[in-house]
């Protein structure tokens, strides 16, 4: 190898990572072992290699000992490979004369026997030392970043991200599946813990989106295809027909009046079926855009073709209504994308013992959000389905959260919105309100104070997971009521509490279509199904796919402030890329050694990105290194070994294999 790279002088650095590594791997022994390996001129161990003294150590040694290869045995390359490469660069060495050995995540943290863990670490270091000798100097490529941004999802996260970017002068495509933006927040009346009116803070932002020159808003639309790579994504958006032209419609809503269906018959999704709408409707008064939608499922014209189409007449010469409208497909190019696809609430029918769907007076929290909402189906009056005013209300916490049988995670917002609803219900009805909780979780600014406030308002709190909501009664006092059976773990006995109304604090779960979205954007999901961030602490809004960022509840349950903060962060990450103008790509691309290529074309069909093409006149294959994403599939497939991959050369991998097995 030395003939290829001149005399190889390797420096090996073993990191203690405090006790994280040193406790399970004998770092001294490891360093001594490394010192004796071929081409190693220097081997050190140090407490924290990633710290700046640690990095200085490397830089200094490169100068003092003419090191031309560096191996660091510490944590996962996914965490600090970049850090150390930069250190090499500063030290005047090509950053790719470096290899990292993962002896923390994949050794000290997963093994208990110190001798064995150390043996394994030695093998891995030995492999790295052999490998790094073959490393070549490489240059990073640069990819220009298209300044436009795609934001998927028009809830508060998407709205905030879109506005932030637009205000920074970037053009944003905001794609929302529903007929209006606003998401879940638009359904709320008040927000905890400040009890300020959700509409008052949300609707201005919604209309700002609509009117912003830098935002292209596509509601009733879905992303159906994503091609390309960071900086240059080609996105296909399917725009479902709403049968009312957004540009021609003035939002007068006369068509709704004019509809031949005089009274509304269709269950209204926005109010979760608590009210009815017409076949032509607007989701809610403050909807954005202020443009009605025709529902082909229920519109007579669509069903029979024999409607007087009074709506069209009412629209008159505005000609906004076109019942023959068809779906449109838009093609756009963006450099980055922010996923803000949100969550869905847990389906209370999955916990039949709480009687949702069986007893009419069992509600989900979201239904009650609509009930207490001034612009909701009851204009803010909290009444039972039979119109009665509830005298006693029970709020069941953790429905579909913290439960082996449904979801293990805490949904984070339920405790607080339950407190909010308890307050609002008491305020509106004067009813006696019981909260049934496992633990009260109020870790947020002003949260605990709000909890105290509710205690002072004489809202009851019973600590215990509710066993069931039932209608079987012991005595007359329970007649006609719903009985909540629960073990009161503070009082230490089982209680039966008769109430008029039960509110199920359903948790947050990943949207049913999260897997499709994930594949569309080539990102990962965590085990519970929420999108996976690149690093839980250091890259919470990034994904493993460059240029794709996360905001809001699609990443994990969170409240509005956290969502907005994350949306801002995602926007900032996108801006950082855009304003840099380019992104540096990993040089681990493939390339064809043309004199060795026999032109068999095996490689051509290997590449899903069409990065390999066949040059007829020289009868050789060639790799377009910009399109190449560096998977190496073509390298393995090349029958005559004529394709090579930077950083994953055959020589390097064979050396690594021999290394790990060197003392087998």
């Amino acid at each position, binding site marked *: 190898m030395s003939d290829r790279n001149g005399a190889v002088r390797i420096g090996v650095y073993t990191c203690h990572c405090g006790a994280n590594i040193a406790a399970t791997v004998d770092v001294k022994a490891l360093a001594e072992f490394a010192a004796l390996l071929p081409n190693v001129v220097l081997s050190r161990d140090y407490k924290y290699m990633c710290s700046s003294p640690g990095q200085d150590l490397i830089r200094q040694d490169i100068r003092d000992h003419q090191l031309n290869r560096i191996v660091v045995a510490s944590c996962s390359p996914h965490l600090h490979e970049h850090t150390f490469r930069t250190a090499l660069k500063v030290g005047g060495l090509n950053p790719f004369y470096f290899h990292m050995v993962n002896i923390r995540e994949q050794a000290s943290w997963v093994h208990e026997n110190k001798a064995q863990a150390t043996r394994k670490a030695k093998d891995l270091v030995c492999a790295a030392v052999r490998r790094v000798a073959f490393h070549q100097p490489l240059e990073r490529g640069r990819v220009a970043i298209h300044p436009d941004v795609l934001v998927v999802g028009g809830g508060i996260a998407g709205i905030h991200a879109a506005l932030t970017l637009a205000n920074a002068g970037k053009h944003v495509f905001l794609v929302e599946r529903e007929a209006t933006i606003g998401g879940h927040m638009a359904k709320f009346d008040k927000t905890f813990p400040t009890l300020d009116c959700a509409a008052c803070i949300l609707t201005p932002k919604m209309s700002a989106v609509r009117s912003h020159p830098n935002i292209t808003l596509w509601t009733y639309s879905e992303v159906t295809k994503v091609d390309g790579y960071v900086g240059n994504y080609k996105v296909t958006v399917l725009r479902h027909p709403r049968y009312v032209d957004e540009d021609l419609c003035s939002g007068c809503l006369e068509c709704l009046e004019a509809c031949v269906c005089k009274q509304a018959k269709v269950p209204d999704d926005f109010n979760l079926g608590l009210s009815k709408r017409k076949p032509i409707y607007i989701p809610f008064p403050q909807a954005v855009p202020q443009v009605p939608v025709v529902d082909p499922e229920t519109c007579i014209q669509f069903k029979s073709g024999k409607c007087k189409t009074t709506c069209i007449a009412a629209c008159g010469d505005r000609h906004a209504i076109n019942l023959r409208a068809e779906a449109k497909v838009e093609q756009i190019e963006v450099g980055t994308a922010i996923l803000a696809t949100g969550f869905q609430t847990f389906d209370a029918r999955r916990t039949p013992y709480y009687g949702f769907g069986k007893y009419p007076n069992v509600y989900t929290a979201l239904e009650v959000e609509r009930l207490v909402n001034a612009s909701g189906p009851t204009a803010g009056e909290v009444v039972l389905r039979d119109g009665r005013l509830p005298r006693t209300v029970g709020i069941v916490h953790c429905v579909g959260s913290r439960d082996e049988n449904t979801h293990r995670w805490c949904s984070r917002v339920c405790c607080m919105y339950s407190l909010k609803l308890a307050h609002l219900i008491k305020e509106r009805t004067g009813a006696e309100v019981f909260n049934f909780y496992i633990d009260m979780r109020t870790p947020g600014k002003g949260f605990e104070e709000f909890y105290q406030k509710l205690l002072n308002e004489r809202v009851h709190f019973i600590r215990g997971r509710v066993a069931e909501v039932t209608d079987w009664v012991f005595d007359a006092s329970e007649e006609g009521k719903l009985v909540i059976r629960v073990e009161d773990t503070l009082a230490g006995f089982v209680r039966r509490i008769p109430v008029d109304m039960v509110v199920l604090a359903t948790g947050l779960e990943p949207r049913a279509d999260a897997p499709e979205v994930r594949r569309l954007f080539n990102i990962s999901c965590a085990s519970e199904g929420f999108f996976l961030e690149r690093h839980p602490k250091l890259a919470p809004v990034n994904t493993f796919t460059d240029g794709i960022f996360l905001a809001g509840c699609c990443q994990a349950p969170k409240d509005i402030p956290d969502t907005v903060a994350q949306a801002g962060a995602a926007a900032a990450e996108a801006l950082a890329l855009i304003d840099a103008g380019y992104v540096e790509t990993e040089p681990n691309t493939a390339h064809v*050694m043309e*004199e*060795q*290529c*026999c*032109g*068999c*074309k*095996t490689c*051509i*069909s*290997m590449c899903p990105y069409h990065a390999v093409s*066949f040059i007829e006149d020289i*009868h050789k294959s060639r790799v377009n290194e910009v399109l190449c994403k560096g998977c190496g*599939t073509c390298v*393995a*497939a*090349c*029958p*005559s*070994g*004529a394709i090579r991959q930077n950083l994953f050369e*055959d020589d390097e991998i*064979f050396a690594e294999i021999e290394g790990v097995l060197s003392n087998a």
Partner: protein
Amino acid sequence: MKPKVAFYWCASCGGCEEAVLDLAEGVLNVVAAVDIVFWPVALDFKEKDISAMDDGSIAISFINGAVRTSHQLEMARLLRRKSKLVVAFGACAQLGGIPGLANLTTAAGILAEVYGDAGTPELQFRDDGHALTLPKLFDSVFALDRAIPVDYYVPGCPPSPKIVSDMFQALLDEPLPEPGAVLAPDHAMCDECPRRDTRPQELKLDRFYRVQERMLDMDRCILAQGLPCLGPATRAGCGSRCIAGNMPCTGCFGPTSHMRDYGGKALCSIASVIEGNETAQIDRVFEGIVDPVGTFYRYSLPSSFLERKRLE
């Protein structure tokens, strides 16, 4: 005076001897240029004649065939001692060759296979005062360079006349090629294949055939017709004689210098261009390859990473 050369055969079929004669009248130039001191198949020299010579007094020894008996080992070592250059001549010497497939079994296995219960002659026997000792049959077959250091390799089963004459050219006058060189082009034979332009870019084979199972189109890429043709992985220089005969390349010219395990690489490549993403379908496609080792290591098992079948 003319350089002394020796020819010798170890475990081989004799085809490589033929290959020298395949030079036709060209062989006369060779004969004219050199002084042949040893060639069991053609000339009556004895082993003792070689032993009598001074070390290094032979310019070049051309040894074909694999090493699989103690006597072949002795001869190889003897010729190595007496020669300046040793050339591994032909696939068997270079890679182990067809005899190398014996590494799927053992000496005992082979004898049982061949003689059944007929019994095999004992290693020692005497006849009116003469004692004869049969050489030991090794359990494994070896390429020549596992037995002795080899200076040059000439690929092919057998090497083509062109390759052979080029070889003499290269070795008889200065400057000599790089030590350890394989005396053939260092790219795959697809490049020279007359049908190369008929190889489609999108190849998705949905089944494999054996030669006897399919009437082959004379001028279409053979791999594209569903036969595991190893042309893409095999060193060029053979003159595509098999292709011309409408037979797939079976890889006798062995690997180019850019791969380490010929069969592994060839398998890796061919397995990449098939149809199917589910196990069941994939297995159906591969049913047509009844003997993977025989298909991908036909000439190179002893020089592969695994060298031989694992002992039970």
